[in-house]
């Protein structure tokens, strides 16, 4: 029986380990702000190119979410769209399998 669920057990352990290490880091490391690699790289580009991030101008003007909350909502919407497609297809397949 354990052999049958090897992958599920491994996935649960991997996700649990990921969460525990994250919690441990967030409690113990004083400087861990969990900044996005985008922001870290942007800072490094500014440092290496000598051009401050604020002076980098877009080539094509782009709409920017007005607040972090709106941005988070839109990211959640993207995840929901993906989740709906996956759920819909898996549901369709399960329905097909039950019919057979």
């Amino acid at each position: 029986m354990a052999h049958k669920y090897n992958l599920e057990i491994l996935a649960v352990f991997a996700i649990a380990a990921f969460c525990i290490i994250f919690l441990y880091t967030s409690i113990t490391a004083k400087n861990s702000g969990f900044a996005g690699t985008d922001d870290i790289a942007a800072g490094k580009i500014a440092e290496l190119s000598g051009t401050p991030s604020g002076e980098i101008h877009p080539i094509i003007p782009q709409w920017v979410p007005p607040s972090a909350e709106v941005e988070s909502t839109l990211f959640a919407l993207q995840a929901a769209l993906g989740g709906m497609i996956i759920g819909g297809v898996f549901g369709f397949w399960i329905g097909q399998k039950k019919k057979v």
Partner: protein
Amino acid sequence: MHIMEGYLSLQWCIVWWLFALPCLAYGVLHLKKVMDADREALPLLGVTGGFIFLLSSLKLPTPFGSSSHPTGTGLSAICFGPWITSVVCAIVLLFQALFLAHGGLSTLGANTVSMGIIGPLVGYTMYRLLKNTSVSMYTTVFLVTAFADLSTYVVTSFQLALGAVHPATGNVVSSFIVFLGIFAITQIPIAIVEGIVLALVFKYIVQLKPDILIHLNIFSEETINAARREADGP
């Protein structure tokens, strides 16, 4: 990580667009061919595309005090190859550039090359090398998805080192190592978890829709049937 608007010079944006556009055009033609040959492949395309949509929206914190997101491209690379994956990725990246300002429009070509073309191409090459070996199917899926993810960030580091740092202020090789240090270290734990999760998803696809995997010749009938028997248990 998607390269933000304005971070690459116009010349480099054009270079990466010129790289991406023929691949996307070939991907569209290949997609039409696959869909014309078998409409049953459409739901599988939906699942693989759905995972790119879902996973690339999840910004995950890592043990290194930074955060990044998975790419989810490995599953699509295995099922449909890198060219169709590039089309799906371009759609996801366009959505993120238009509605989230996550990645730029001028840098969309560069981001498509890293996440949609070279990452999946590395994964697909690995899949082809491992497909008919003694390496198990799920280990293959794990390795392909993890390496497709990691290689995306290696390419992004290279693109930034080439196009974002002025030669007078930063050497390309040393800048590449600097960016690799930022992305790769953050990405390693995320790529491992992504690999395990997508291997699990592949197991469910094998259980629910093995015929489409056999029909698309993703793995041999014997391998798929053996995996099904194993999943069904004694």
